[in-house]
Structures are given as structure tokens and as C-alpha cells.
């Protein structure tokens, strides 16, 4: 589904990603963990090319999306993203937030977009907030709307960039619940997170990154109970 080959990314002289290779299979939930500054968010943002990559290739369903001839906007309609700070559009209502991209990019009718939007809002448990503005929602509610907004494009892959890091602790659960549901339905997901519980419970595979490298990857039980690398051990001993 996603194949990352020799991915490199530098900001000026600072090389943040140094030769990343990874594969994500269909319906797989891959959780990326690691200390801050390890490059895990940058890695995620390179997948849909919110960051222009410095070197390497990213294939999505066999298509080399780093090829200049490929329309990246088209690729992004297949790859939904959820951000740490939600990035909802504050001048639009919750439902309008969800409808915008289907209307403008997919060119579906207003009725269709609104029907689909309401369906998704029900799914994330926020149907009654359709006409509210994002500013009036709690953090957890905002993030659930953001997930619904990404799902409205019917993506094949969902990227989550620390979706619960900006939330009050009591709101983390409601967002993780929606993500679990999504995983159960067979969505292909790449999740950057500090929620080790989520990684253990929902992840099919865990990738541990540090200093721009993938240090170790394995199924959750192996990573958490039997880490092979010293750096993985050191990191896990601090966070668990």
C-alpha cells in the first residue's frame, strides 16, 4: 500500500530523516513511536508530501508519488491526515468543514456531501454539533470532527500525527475510541503517537525511530516486551 524507499529529508543543514525504508500493507495499523525530534512526524508528513522530500521515493499503491509528473493533489485525496492541532477551519461550521473538500475536489452535490457529512458525524458521535463552529467544541470533539473531515474524502490510508498530544487527558479516550473503530473496519493507518497503550492494543506493527533512523520494528508484543536494541530499551524504560 505504502512503500518508502531511501527517504531522506533535510531542513537546511539539519538532516532529519536519514535513509528511511518502510512498507505498510493494506489494512495494517502501523504505530510510529520515538523521542521528540526523532523525525517521526516529519516521516509521516513526507508520506503525503506536506514536506518536500530531499531524496528517495514514496510509492502509494504502486505509484511513485515523488515523480514530478504525478499530481500530488490527487494522491492526497486518497491519503487522509489528522493533525496534532486539528487544523479545523474556524470560519466554517462543523458540517461545512467536512463538506468543503468533497464539494470542491470530488465535486459531489451539496445534498450528497451533507448526507455523507452527517453520516460521518454520527459515526464519531457528534451529529448534534453539525451547525456549531469549531471554537465552541472541546479538544476531543475537535479532533473527532477532524477525523470525520478526513474520512469524508473516502481515503484508502489515514495518517495520524500525534492526534491526542494536544488534548486534556480525559479527552484522549474518546479520540482513541474512534481510531480503534476505524482500525477494526480495516482502514490502513499510520499513527505517530505517545500512547503506548494504543500501540499495544491496536497496532499490528510498531516502528521505533530515533535521530532520523528506524531503529527497530516489530509486532507490539515483541517491541514492548522484548526490545532488541539498546536505544529502544532506553526509550521504553522512560515512557512505560
Amino acid at each position, binding site marked *: 500500500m505504502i512503500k518508502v524507499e531511501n527517504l531522506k529529508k533535510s531542513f537546511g543543514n539539519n538532516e532529519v530523516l536519514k535513509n528511511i525504508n518502510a512498507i505498510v500493507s493494506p489494512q495494517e495499523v502501523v504505530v510510529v513511536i520515538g523521542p521528540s525530534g526523532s523525525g517521526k512526524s516529519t516521516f509521516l508528513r513526507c508520506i503525503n508530501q506536506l514536506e518536500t522530500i530531499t531524496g528517495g521515493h514514496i510509492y502509494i499503491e504502486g505509484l511513485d508519488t515523488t515523480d514530478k509528473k504525478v499530481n500530488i*493533489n490527487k494522491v492526497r485525496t486518497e491519503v487522509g491526515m489528522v493533525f496534532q492541532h486539528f*487544523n479545523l477551519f474556524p470560519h466554517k461550521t462543523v458540517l461545512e468543514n467536512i463538506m*468543503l*473538500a468533497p464539494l*470542491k475536489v470530488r465535486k459531489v452535490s451539496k445534498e450528497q456531501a451533507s448526507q455523507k457529512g452527517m453520516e460521518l458525524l454520527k459515526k464519531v458521535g457528534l451529529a448534534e454539533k453539525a451547525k456549531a463552529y469549531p471554537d*465552541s467544541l472541546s479538544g476531543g470533539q475537535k479532533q473527532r470532527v477532524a477525523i470525520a473531515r478526513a474520512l469524508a474524502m473516502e481515503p484508502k490510508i489515514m495518517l495520524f500525527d500525534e492526534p491526542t498530544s494536544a488534548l486534556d487527558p480525559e479527552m484522549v479516550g474518546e479520540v482513541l475510541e474512534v481510531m480503534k473503530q476505524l482500525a477494526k473496519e480495516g482502514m490502513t493507518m499510520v499513527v505517530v503517537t505517545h500512547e503506548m497503550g494504543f500501540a499495544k492494543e491496536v497496532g499490528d506493527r510498531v516502528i521505533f525511530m530515533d535521530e532520523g533512523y528506524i531503529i527497530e520494528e516489530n509486532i507490539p508484543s515483541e517491541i514492548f516486551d522484548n526490545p532488541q536494541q539498546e536505544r529502544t530499551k532506553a526509550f521504553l524504560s522512560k515512557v512505560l
Partner: protein
Amino acid sequence: MSFRWDIIFEYAPFLLKGTLLTIGLSVSSILIGTFLGLLIGLGKIIRNKVLAFPFYCYVTVFRGTPLLVQIFLIHFGVVPFFTGETNAVAAGVIALSLNAAAYIAEIFRAGIQSIDKGQTEGSRSLGMTHAQTMIHVVLPQAFKRMIPPLGNEFIVLLKDSSLLCVIAAPELMYWGKAMGSQYFKVWEPYLACAFIYLFLTLILSFVLNRLERRLKTE
């Protein structure tokens, strides 16, 4: 010395005519200047330095030279060059629009750049193009923040239209001056003008306040 109300009343029809022209000049210059300002502001934030350069130059020149000089150049130079004759009203609209566009471009640029990068990323991640992102996500939010500085600019423009009396565009100040020189009076004509300008700017700020309040979400 007594205040001569009678000459104000005598000149009232001319002052009214002048006021209408002042409004016309200001409104058309605001509209044209805002449109040009948007284009120039967008031009200035193009990442390609070569493409952005002409827009930098435009703002530098029109912001860095006095409006009065621009009025003279356009009235006695540019307009006759293209049409063969002078036209004070046309020159007035052109000068005011071009001058205001430089300031409005900076207001647009600042407004656009004040919108959090996450908004653009959220929009682009959904597959929307750069243009769609600008139109549906960034500009509507930026516009709300731009209303107070735009209001300032519109008020300045309205008052600056009085400079056009020097090229004999028959706007409000032109008739004020005419009245002053006919009767050798200072207070009556210029106070009358001052009050009318004040009245116009008050209306303008009232309208802008209403607009600002209406665009508030929640």
C-alpha cells in the same frame, strides 16, 4: 467679525456636488485599489523571487513617493500621454487607486501570512489545490483580520481625495477653496469642509464596524 452662515448656504449646492464627487472618487478608488491590492499582495508572497520582484517594486515606488507627486505625474503626464488631454477626475481615480493599492497589498500580505500554517496544511492534506486553499480557507479568515487596517486605509483615502483640488477635480475641497477665495474667508469654507469630511469618515467607520461584527463567528 461674525461667522457668515449665509455664504455657506449660498455654496451649499456646490458643496453637495463636491461631496458627491468625493464619495464617487473614494468609493471607486477603494474598489479598484482593493482589487489591485489583492493581486499585488498575492504577487508579493509568490515564493519565486523573480516573479515576486515587480510587485515589490510597485509597493516600494507607490509607498515611497508622495501622493501629491503621483497625482501631478498622472494628471499632467500619464493621462495626457494616453488620451491626448487632461482629465482631472480620471487622473484622480487612477492616482488614488494606485496609491491605495500599494498599502492595501501590504494589508493583504500581512493578513494572509497571519493565518496559521496548519490551515493551509489541513486544506492541502484533503487534496485541495493551492488556489482552492487560498479562496476557501485562507482568504476568508485573513479578510476578517484585515477589516480594521483596511478601514484605516479607506479613511485615509477618503481624506486624501481632498488633494485632488490641486488638479481642479471639482470635489469637496475644490469648492471649499473656491468659496474661500471668492469671499476671502477662512473659517466658513474650511470648517464646512472639515465637518463634511468628518461626517463621511464617521459613516465609513460605522459601516466597517457593522461588517466586522457580522463576520464574527459564534
